């Protein structure tokens, strides 16, 4: 650590080195977010937005929500449905991601094999999501391989319709695309666990499950939370996967924004974006609580 402070004094000042990086985020992230919030309070007509201060976009978004109670209005239905997708995808990616990370971190003995297998899991992440989505069509379609196999085996008489362009295919695609985001942080957490702890547990007579439950899982919590934040925020804001895999039939929180944008209604789109952002942040705060409660940080 002393070496670090010594190095700190040399070269160009830190703020100057960070300036270009910071400017990109100022102009393409911080200011745009500010504009989203501002414009969400503007008025609009058929062809332009009108600077003013009105809650019209918010009021219209939640129109009828109070009157329709106890039934859910469209926007609440959409959020409940999106939250369901979030929960299912989160559970699936967590279980699969944890198992894969556990296998790589604790059952592969040599670092080289570990890195090769890790790379095998990573490479698909570096290819196009849309292509990975459409690659399910020949498998899940009406005349796809899965239906052909099921019919050949006389398990079904007519092709299953719910395999593609359905909630099932949307969920499958999410798991297919984003388990990576669980594997990496959990794997990272696991690699930091002192192997002597595992040996100590073994010597003290703990079974494999006991070691997993009482030692490894608690120590992996930071990785699990980081992975969860990624997966949950991706599903909350997604519109591409819902579009391509849902056959444009399934509503989602992200798609509400996109639909408004396609109609060039910027203030309502911005209001929906603010709501989406708020809900996403609430979920993240909630996830952080789960970890804090058990005094993990």
């Amino acid at each position, binding site marked *: 650590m002393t*070496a*670090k402070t010594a*190095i*700190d004094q*040399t*070269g*160009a*000042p*830190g*703020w*100057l*080195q*960070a300036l*270009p*990086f*910071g400017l*990109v*985020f100022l102009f*393409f*992230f911080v200011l*745009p*977010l*500010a504009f*989203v919030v501002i*414009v969400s309070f503007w008025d609009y007509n058929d062809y332009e937005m009108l600077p003013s201060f009105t809650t019209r976009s918010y009021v219209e978004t939640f129109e009828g929500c109070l009157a329709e109670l106890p039934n859910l209005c469209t926007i609440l239905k959409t959020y409940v449905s999106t939250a369901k997708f979030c929960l299912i995808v989160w559970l699936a990616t967590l279980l699969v991601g944890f*198992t*894969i990370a556990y*296998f790589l971190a604790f*059952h592969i003995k040599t670092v080289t094999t570990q890195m090769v297998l890790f790379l*095998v*899991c990573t490479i698909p992440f*570096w*290819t*196009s*999501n*849309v*292509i*990975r989505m*459409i*690659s399910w069509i020949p498998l899940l*379609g009406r005349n796809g*391989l899965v239906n*052909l196999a099921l019919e050949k085996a006389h398990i079904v008489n007519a092709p299953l319709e719910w395999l593609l362009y359905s909630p099932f295919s949307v969920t499958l695609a999410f798991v*297919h695309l984003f388990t990576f985001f669980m594997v990496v942080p959990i794997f990272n957490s696991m690699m930091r666990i002192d*192997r002597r702890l*595992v040996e100590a547990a073994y010597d003290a007579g703990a079974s*494999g499950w006991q070691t997993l439950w009482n030692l490894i899982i608690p120590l992996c919590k930071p990785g699990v939370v980081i992975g969860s934040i*990624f997966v949950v*925020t991706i599903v909350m*804001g997604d*519109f*591409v996967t819902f*579009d*391509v895999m849902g056959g444009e039939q399934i509503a989602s929180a992200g798609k509400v924004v*996109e639909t408004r*944008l396609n109609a060039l209604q910027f203030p309502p789109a*911005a209001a929906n*974006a603010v709501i989406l952002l708020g809900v*996403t942040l609430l979920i*993240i705060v909630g996830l952080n609580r789960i970890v804090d409660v058990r005094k993990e940080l």
Partner: protein
Amino acid sequence: MGEGRSPAFYWLAAFFAVFVLFLYGPMIVIFILSFQGPTGGLTFPLNGVSLHWFERLLRGGGLIDISDAFKRSLELGVVVMILTVLLSLSAGLAFRKRFVGSNLLFYVAVASLIVPSIVTSLGIALEFRLLDDFLKAHGPAWISDDLKTTMDTFTSGLGAHLTWTLPFGLLVMFAIFNRFDHRYEEAARDLGATPWQTLRHVVLPIILPSVIGVGLFGFTLSWDEIARSSQAMGEHNTLPMELQALTTTVTTPEIYALGTATTGVSFAVIAVALLAIAFVRARQARHGSDAGHA
């Protein structure tokens, strides 16, 4: 950890194998189907094997004319890659020192990963629309007269991609510098090297493999990006955006051929990056303690 393989190992290994099949299986299927014969459809069986759909893709006469989008995405990817490497490296160096606002900058970068892409994309679109309005109303005549929009691939589009690639770049830089042995720099300084010389001849050669990794991230994330691009590209769509639009209209294996071609570019870039990393590593090993010798 006992000796030998436990039964758990075989269960987990089987699970891993299934997972890998799950990851690669569908991609292999469309790879095969892109060589579908001229009369073949979107699903099996193969009606012969041909390069028919690749030919149509190349000629551009078919349903898809994507050569412009292909070129645009490639150029954008390269620019994003270069900027991601330069800006992340510079910021990574900055974060090793104390500077005002370093915490804030870190949180902003992480927030950029977490805020839904559609929100960021909408914000950038609004920003440029307001800028257009302002320029048209108040700008000097030589700008405002034939201004249509300031939104384009290399203005708003480039910025949108950087908000996605730079946080990854910075996180990789953190990982690099956390493992960096500071004694190399001290030794260089003790021998009278200037900060620039230390960076150029000591630090950079040591971290080069990881810097190539950052470049790989920069290119592939940009090459495949779609959600952030959706509102921020102006008139010209990138390749993934064209592809998404095509999923609803194209019903021939041409789209698989396009998928195979696009994936081919991704794999080529990954392969070049991995080879470059292996080459640099081997060179480092050969030169031993002379790691920085140019």
